[in-house]
């Protein structure tokens, strides 16, 4: 304890609180993605630059914005068509539910991508484990190189053009199971889908997606689960075009 002067009014050396280098909390969202004290503390001036670490996330977010913009334009056009005062009017039972389901799906996907982007930004652009891959209809079985990560073998069968996204949250080595891929509505699903790490020579990842005949266009998503621990490890999404 610092020495206590007998009379503080005459003695300027009375004990005082120290000057503090920081007196405010850090409210940046980078803190939500990591433990306090990880690395040097961040202040507002040190927030990660708004650069995008991976092409896939950037593309995904850009795609999300484009889709939303496109949808808004469509919606505005539809609204404009009703500019003349309607007499009696009711929503078309076919058009609007489809539009709104797409809207909900895009909003959900976009939000998820947004959080992915924020996570990557909070890691200062460090490469994240996980990978994505794309395939189109009747893609041949050939390894596809993802930049600097795993080698892939794609086994895809689909009557329609298909975009496939595999999002694994961390490297996996054990057996994986893929839950049936379902859309936001409808009862049909893609059940013949699998991801096999190390199944191919050289340790390539084998992704199999066999889309059943006459499956309606849409986005089908299923969880990828570690067969041993039953923990979710990511998701597999197939988007069937019209």
């Amino acid at each position, binding site marked *: *304890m610092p020495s*206590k*002067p007998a009379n*503080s*009014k005459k003695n300027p050396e*009375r*004990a*005082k*609180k*120290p000057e*503090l280098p920081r*007196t405010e*909390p850090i*409210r*940046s*969202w980078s*803190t*939500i*993605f990591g*433990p*306090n*004290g990880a690395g040097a503390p961040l202040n*507002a001036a040190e*927030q990660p630059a708004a650069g995008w670490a991976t092409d896939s996330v950037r593309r995904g977010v850009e795609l999300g914005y484009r889709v939303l913009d496109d949808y*808004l334009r469509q*919606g505005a056009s539809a*609204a*404009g068509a*009703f*500019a*003349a*005062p*309607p007499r009696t*009017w*009711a*929503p078309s039972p076919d058009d609007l539910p489809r539009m*709104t*389901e797409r*809207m*909900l799906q895009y*909003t959900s996907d976009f*939000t*998820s991508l*947004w959080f*992915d982007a*924020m996570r990557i930004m909070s890691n200062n652009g460090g490469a994240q484990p996980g990978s994505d891959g794309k395939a189109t209809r009747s893609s041949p079985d050939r390894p596809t190189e993802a930049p600097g990560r795993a080698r892939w073998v794609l086994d895809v069968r689909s009557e329609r053009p298909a975009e496939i996204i595999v999002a694994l*949250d*961390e490297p996996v080595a054990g057996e994986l*199971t893929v839950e*049936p891929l*379902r*859309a*936001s*509505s409808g009862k049909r699903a893609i059940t013949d889908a699998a991801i096999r790490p190390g199944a191919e020579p050289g340790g390539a990842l084998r992704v199999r997606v066999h889309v059943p005949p006459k499956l309606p266009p849409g986005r089908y998503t*299923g*969880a990828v*689960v570690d067969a041993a*621990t*039953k923990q*979710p490890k990511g998701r597999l999404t197939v988007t069937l075009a019209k």
Partner: protein
Amino acid sequence: MAVIGGGCAGLTTAFELSSPEHRGKYAVTVYQTGFRLGGKGASGRGPADRIEEHGLHLWMGFYENAFALMRQCYAELGRDRKKCRIADWTDAFVPDPLCGVMDRAPDGRWSPWVANLPPMPGLPGDPDAAPARWTVADYLQRSVILVRSLLETIQTGVQGKVDKSASPERNPIGAAPGELSAMMERIMSYGGLAGFGGLIEGLKILDEVARALPRFPREGILRFHQVLADSARAQIDRLTANDNGLRRLWEVAELVLATIRGIIRDGLVTDPRGFSAIDHLDCRAWLRQNGASERAVDSAFLRALYDLAFAYEDGDIERPGIAAGQAVRGAVRAFFTYRGAFLWKMQYGMGDVVFAPLYEVLLRRGVGFEFFHRLRNVGLGPKEPGERPHVETLSFEVQAKTVAGRPYRPLVDVRGLPCWPSEPDWGQLAGGQAMKREGRRFESHWDTRNVGKRTLTVGRDFDIAVLAVGVGAVPFVCRELIDSDPRWKEMASKVKSVPTQALQLWLRKEIGELGWNRGSVNVSGYVEPFDTWADMPQLIREETFPTPVKAVAYFCSVLRDGGEEEMKTPDYPERRQREVRRHAIRFLNEDLGRLWPRAVDGAGRFRWDLLASPTARAAGADERRIDSQYVRANVEPSDRYCLSLPGTLSARISPLDQTYDNLTVAGDWTDCGFNEGCVEAAVMSGRLAAHAVSQQPPLEKIVGFDHP
């Protein structure tokens, strides 16, 4: 170090500053009004050793700082389990995953919605941890697990026993793939509903387009908008009217959608203020402006949020208010960062579990305690040019002195357990028996009788002051600060508090026999005057009633504030106490039957013979039996509950504030990073106050201080 106030915040500061790491650098003395520590958390032992609390204290699984404090405390205490039944923190706190809200259907009928929230890895307060690193996958995984719990409560309910598939023994993370797919199938089956929700979302966005693109005829779009919205809402209402499960799920979905929409729309993800950017708005208003319906904002979930925070300005239930940013922050922390269980229930009174162990450890470390010292004024020193202002004096009234000046021993032994009594030990006090006859109320602001005054002077009696009094006491003891410092003036006028009311019942039948078949639960969101109920069977074995007690129930709620003039009258606390007694009688006769259908007679009136008395004296079988129970009006300034009203959080003063060179503040009313009235905020503020003095603990180690 003069720590004024022996509640959670002040004792936390004392704990930190007396830590062995400081090697005795700080000589700490705690100054406390009355005869016991604890502040709003103080409890005592009354007749039949019954525990008498200020109200209901639930510890949440995200209270990392508070649990870390208690775990360190118990570890250092090293009690012998053979001699003391609370030897370890796990004897004191037990996981409590079952919680519920009282849901009101559109037809006005009440029904409970009880959820068994799944256990999460780890234990709160685990050392070297903030919560495990969050990846988006963790966030989504938690969301999925919580949604699954939600769906299970809708599917199967909890009929007097925990749903096996959500039992605490089973780790939901290890759910079999078949169960995951069943869950996803169930979510997908609501696809039709989600479509309508998307419709409304789409309409909201169209509305924004209309504002942004003036070439689109606004009138036409608005008409279009209104027709579609009305049509959609009508269809949702039809779909959910007869299905409570669907309706509840839809209400939650709406709230989640509105929250996500608000986070994106208001740019909270990139705003350096994080959620604080919307603290000027009320939570319900913010949700409404982001698309939540009236039904969703009046849902059981949201009502429970407000009830648990006593978030009603001036105690008026027609004026709910909670800062939106803090509400969202609290929800994120509560639901996504809890460890072990969502809630943890104390197995004894809070005084027994928290403040007795803390007192013992602090005493052992050499911290001094001055009981019966009521702070009257924080006096400022003369302003020196170029110097920061400072506190010169701390003026106290000495309420009582001990016989021969011996140290006051505040604890009593209840069958081997150190506890706080509900009355002082009059025998230790000089003139104690006379004081007892006079009815001295040492904890009452209105009883100003004292045996002397004492003024501490800086440099001689203290160097640095930690003001850890309750927020309601600040205007009475900090007049000089308020009159001379605009920030203190603003804080005193904006940071408001409310009184609360509490009721404890001891019953001669088990809760199941009274008609509640949803398990031992904590329920909120019910009606005033007692909107929150907790079943407390764990206390039965601890108390020694002459009549066998089969159930213990705690109720609490906000209490309407008195007017300024009303509060000055000397019999104010007695009048409010009588008022709460009337509330209790009315509640038991008119509202309790919906929770416990067999606790009321054929006319719907409460069966007073169900109440167990702590004394052998027989009480009447009518309303007078309420006097054998514990009814409490928490109207003392120090007992008032701090609010987080919209537009007020920026007026709070931080423990890290550098304005005064020898003063820091601590309490759940300060700007502590989690600006809501709760134990966790109090402990965080106490740690911050310690940091302000010693730069320990590091700010990065105060879990949740840095958080959006």
